[in-house]
C-alpha cells in the first residue's frame, strides 16, 4: 500500500501546484484585465485572516468567476493531456503505426504502462472534480456565474466518461489476454 501512496503523492505534487498557481495567476490576470479595484482585508477573527477584497459585489463576482474559469481550464488541459496519453500512448493498446513512428524517433519513452496512465489520470480526475465542486459551491454562494458552473460540470462529466471508457477497454484487453 505504501508504494501506491508514494506514487500517488509523487504524481499529485505537480498537478496540485499547478492548480494553486492557476488560481493565483487567474486572480492577478482578472484584476489587471478588468482593472478591478481591489485590496487586502485583514480579518483577525476568521480562519482566513487575509482576504482579497473588492469595492463592489459585481467586481467580486467577476474576479471569482473568471479566476475560477482559469483554474478550471488549467486542470481541464492537464486532464486532457492525461487522457490523450491513456488513449494514444498507452502500452496496452498503442497502434502499431504510432509505435513504429515513436521507435524510429527514439521517443518510445513517452509510452506509459497502465499503472502509470491510470495513476496520473486518477490524480487529474480527483482534481477536476475538486475544482468542479469548488466552482459549484461558489455558484451556489452567488460568487460565480451560473454558466461557468454548468460548463465545468458538463466538461468534467465528459472527461470522466472518456476515462471510464478507456478503463473499460483496458479491462477487456486484460480479460482477453487471460483467456
Amino acid at each position, binding site marked *: *500500500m*505504501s508504494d501506491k*501512496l*508514494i506514487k*500517488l*503523492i509523487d504524481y*499529485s*505534487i505537480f498537478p*496540485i501546484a499547478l*492548480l*494553486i498557481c492557476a*488560481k*493565483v495567476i487567474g*486572480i492577478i490576470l482578472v484584476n489587471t484585465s478588468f*482593472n478591478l*479595484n*481591489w*485590496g487586502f*482585508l485583514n480579518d483577525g477573527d476568521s480562519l*482566513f485572516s*487575509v*482576504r*482579497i*477584497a*473588492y*469595492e*463592489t*459585489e459585481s467586481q*467580486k463576482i467577476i*474576479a*471569482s468567476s473568471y*479566476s475560477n474559469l482559469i*483554474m478550471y481550464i488549467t486542470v481541464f488541459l492537464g486532464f486532457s493531456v492525461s487522457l490523450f496519453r491513456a488513449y494514444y500512448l498507452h502500452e496496452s493498446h498503442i497502434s502499431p503505426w504510432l509505435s513504429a513512428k515513436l521507435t524510429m524517433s527514439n521517443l518510445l519513452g513517452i509510452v506509459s504502462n497502465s499503472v502509470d496512465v491510470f495513476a496520473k489520470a486518477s490524480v487529474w480526475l*480527483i*482534481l477536476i472534480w*475538486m475544482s468542479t465542486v*469548488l466552482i459549484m459551491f*461558489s455558484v451556489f454562494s452567488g*460568487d460565480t456565474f451560473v454558466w461557468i458552473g454548468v460548463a465545468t460540470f458538463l466538461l468534467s462529466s465528459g472527461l470522466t466518461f472518456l476515462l471510464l471508457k478507456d478503463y473499460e477497454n483496458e479491462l477487456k484487453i486484460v480479460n482477453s489476454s487471460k483467456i
Partner: protein
Amino acid sequence: MNKAERQIKNAFLLFVACALFALPVFVYFNLVPVVDSSLSQNSLTNQDISNKERNFDEVEDKIAQVVNTENKDEKVLGVDNKNLFGVNNFFDSRSIIKEEVLIDEEKAFFSVVTIAPLVSEQSMIFDAYLINDNPKYKKINIEFGMAEDEFAGLEIVAIVNDNKYLVYDGTKLTKDSEISLNSNEMVVLGFEINGEEKLPEIEKNISIKLDRL
C-alpha cells in the same frame, strides 16, 4: 519492517496525501473574495476614471462642474497645459478640495487629486492623491518646479507613498525634484515645508509638472 512500523508508515503517507489534496481547497477558500466598501474611499473615483471606455466629454463636464461650483472656497487646480497641478489656488481655501479630473493638452491623461493642506506656523503639509491610471503610460514623471528665491533657507520635502524626497535643500532644487511613478498606481503625494522663517506665500511658487514617460 514489522507490521506496526508498516502501519505507521502507511498512516503517515495517507496523512500526507490527504494534506496535499486539502491544500488547494484551503488556498481556494483563502482566495474567495469579499466586498469591502471602504476601498471606494481610498480609490476616490478610481472606478469612474479608470474605466477604459470613459469618454472625454464626461471628464470635461466634471471639470466644468468643479469650476462652476457656487462655493468659491473650492477651487479647481490649474489645468494649463503641462502645469497640470498648478497649486495656485488651493491655499486660498484651506479646505479639502474635492476630486478633480486633470487632463493634459492632448486630452489623454487623466488623474484624480484630492488635496488637504494643513498649515502651522513653521511647517506646511498638504496631501494629494494621484492616480496614474492610464494604461497607455507605463510611468509618469513628477517634476516639482518652484520659485527658488522664495524658499531660500526653507527645506521642502516631498512625500510619495511614505518615502521622503528632499526636493529643495534650502539653496537649490535637488535631483529628487523629479520622481517617477508607475502606471495604475495610486500614490499619496505630500509636502512638508519646514523652516524658522515666515513661510512664503505658497501660491505661484510651486508647480507640479507631469510628464508621460
